[in-house]
Every structure is written in C-alpha cells, then in structure tokens.
C-alpha cells in the first residue's frame, strides 16, 4: 500500500511537470506578461466558430462595465443571441444567457477557460513562474487542472502564442495579433483535442 501511494505521488509529480519540463528556469517578473492584456473596454469582433463539422458565424461584443466586470455577448448576424457571459473582477463568472443547444456544462466551461486565457487576468497571472528555451520565454500559470502558458520571443516584445495545457500537453493554442490602442485586431483559438476553433476579426464601427 505504501509503495502504491509513493508511486502515485511520484507519477503525479512527473505528470505535473512534464508539459514544460524541458524548459530552463528564467528570471524576471511574471507580471510583465500583463502588458499584452487586451484593453477590452469595448470591442466588436466578426466571429467564426467551427465545431465538429458545424460552422457558426456572428458578432462577439466584449465590454468592460464600470464595476470592471467584462461582458462577452455572442449573437449571429441577424440578431439571435447565443450567449451572454460575465467575468467578474474577483474571478467570478456568471451566465446571463445561453441558447438551449449550447447550455451544456462542458461547453460553457470550455468557452469560459478560452476567454480567461485571452483576457490575461491579473488574478490568474499572479502565481506564475518563468521558463525559457533557446527561442522563447514561457510565462507559466498553474491552474487547478493544468496550466495557462504565455509564450513570448526571447526579448519579451512579441506575444507569440498562448496555451491551455493539461499536465501532459497543450490542449488549446491561441494567438492575438495586431494590437491597435491596446486591442488585438485578430484573435484565434484552436483546440487540439477535438475539432473546435474560434476566429475573431475586429470590426471598426
């Protein structure tokens, strides 16, 4: 029994560290990654979603309210709303509306995590650490079941990609490109473990 427990603990330790285990430790301020945090005061994106053979398109509105909570509303071009989520500054999350077909725990959980990744929220970043390899710097944030990881070039000037990783491998990869006044013009989120991709292109109003 003792051996079983010991080997389980060892497995867990190996498992936890395996995804970014080959990185060398790096020094620096974890909060530095916050400079890539999008300033989503008000942004509207033309949105395309491809999910297991189905294609959805619409408009995604992101707005920060006076109490600093961020609302994300997705509706189709004709006006039918798919969902309306709220991300509170204290880390809380509320579903104001979700269309019946999407009202499933795993769907909401997946979307919540994806948006949290691209929001680079301060409370998420606080407990991270840095790693590096020959090409890039890795800002790694421990999450309950894995990691968020933000990868920049060696100098930390470009955000190359973002990842949601299980303890063993990246399961979501995302990019944010062409910031204008703090707001990325293009956002892409791709899931590796099933066919699910979100593409956002900012609409100038």
């Amino acid at each position, binding site marked *: 029994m003792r051996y079983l427990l010991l080997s389980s603990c060892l497995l867990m330790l190996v498992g936890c560290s395996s995804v970014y285990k080959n990185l060398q430790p790096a020094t620096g301020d974890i909060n530095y990654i916050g400079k890539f945090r999008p300033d989503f005061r008000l942004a509207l994106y033309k949105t395309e979603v491809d999910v297991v053979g189905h294609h959805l398109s619409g*408009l995604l509105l992101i707005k920060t309210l006076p109490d600093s909570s961020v609302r994300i509303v997705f509706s189709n071009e004709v*006006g039918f709303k798919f969902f309306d989520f709220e991300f509170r500054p204290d880390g809380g999350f509320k579903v104001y509306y979700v269309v019946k077909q999407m009202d499933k725990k795993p769907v909401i959980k997946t979307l919540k995590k994806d948006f949290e990744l691209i929001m680079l929220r301060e409370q998420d970043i606080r407990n991270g650490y840095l790693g590096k390899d020959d090409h890039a710097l890795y800002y790694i944030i421990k999450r309950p079941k894995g990691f968020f990881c933000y990868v920049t070039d060696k100098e930390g000037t470009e955000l190359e990609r973002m990842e949601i990783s299980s303890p063993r491998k990246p399961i979501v990869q995302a990019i944010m490109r062409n910031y204008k006044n703090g707001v990325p013009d293009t956002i892409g989120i791709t899931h590796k473990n099933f066919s699910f991709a979100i593409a956002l292109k900012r609409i100038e109003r």
Partner: protein
Amino acid sequence: MHKTILFLLITISSYTLKGQTTGYTPVANLAKFTEQFATIAQKTETIKSDFLQEKNLSMLSEKISSRGKFWFKKENMLRMEYEKPYEYLMILNKDNMYIKDGKKESRVSVKSNKIFQQINKIIVGCVQGAVFNNPDFKMNAYENKGVYMVELVPVAKVLKEFFKNIDITIDKKDYSVTTIVMNENSGDNTTLHFTNRELNTPIPDALFAVK
C-alpha cells in the same frame, strides 16, 4: 391570493402604461385592418428596401448597428444583404436557405431546422400579412394617428425561448411595414427599420438563387 391580485394589477397597469406612454389605443376594427393589410399584401409582388438593424443590449447600454439591402419576391423568396459594418448574405428561397459569410457558403434546408422555419415564417409573414394568422402567435393590434402597431406574443414553446414578443409597426398611409422589433425575454431586442421602399419593381429570380 394576494400575490395573484398583485400580479394581475402589475400586468394590467403595465399594459395601460404601454397605451398611455406611446399614445396607442386598441385597433377599433380589427377585421377591417387585417383584411386591408391582406389586400395590399396580395397586390405586392416584390419589395426592395434598405434596412437598418439594431441589436440593443439593454444591460450593457450598447447597440450593434448594421445596414444592408432587403429584397422580397412572391411567394416566398427573401434576400437580406448586410453591407456595413460587415458583409453577410442570407437568401431564403421557399424551403431552402443560403448563407454567405465572407468566403464561407452554406446551404440549409429550412424544413430541417425549426428556428429557421420560424424566422422564415415571421419575416415573410410580416411582409405578406400571413403572420397575423400564424397560430404560433397571439396577436394584439394598436393604432395611433399615423401607424398600426401589431404585437405578436408567441404561443409556441420554441419561440417563447427566443422572444417575449414581436412588435410590427405598419404605416397607415400604404400599409407598409416600417419596423419589426423582436423583444427577448432578457430585455434585449433586435430592431429592423425599413427605408427607401420600392414596391413591385421587377426583381430577377437569379437574385434569390440558392446555388
């Protein structure tokens, strides 16, 4: 019991308030109104119009506006082309639907999708007047000096999930639909304003081709 009375009072007062604030009174002769609307709609072979769509997100105090062109041809052909601030094309041709979103094209059989069936019924029904006889809605009609306002309250379960009610404003001069407001249960709504309407100008069928 008290709760029931209170609920009734609130319901009644909100309806009265609606009448008072907007200056509408119930349509005096409903049969005449629907008959006249149907007569005009019967003579309408085609409609070409510009539209402005506004999605009002009440809790966010935010409005998403888009503009485009609207074409209708009897019996059941509809084309809505969104031009600004994004491009999006939707064609309904009887039971088929075609969507062009950027470079992506998709075709859907309206029959296979209850929601599309209802969208089709509502928009085409508004234009043709058939929506007033749609058993999926309970109809209330009001009027003021210049317009009729028809309120459609969904009865069908699938529609109740999406809409609280749909308000259609009809110009008294020519019985043209000027505005459709689709109110959601959340307080948000989507409004379609129609302007620059041209009636019965020839529109080729090719415009509604579901390729």
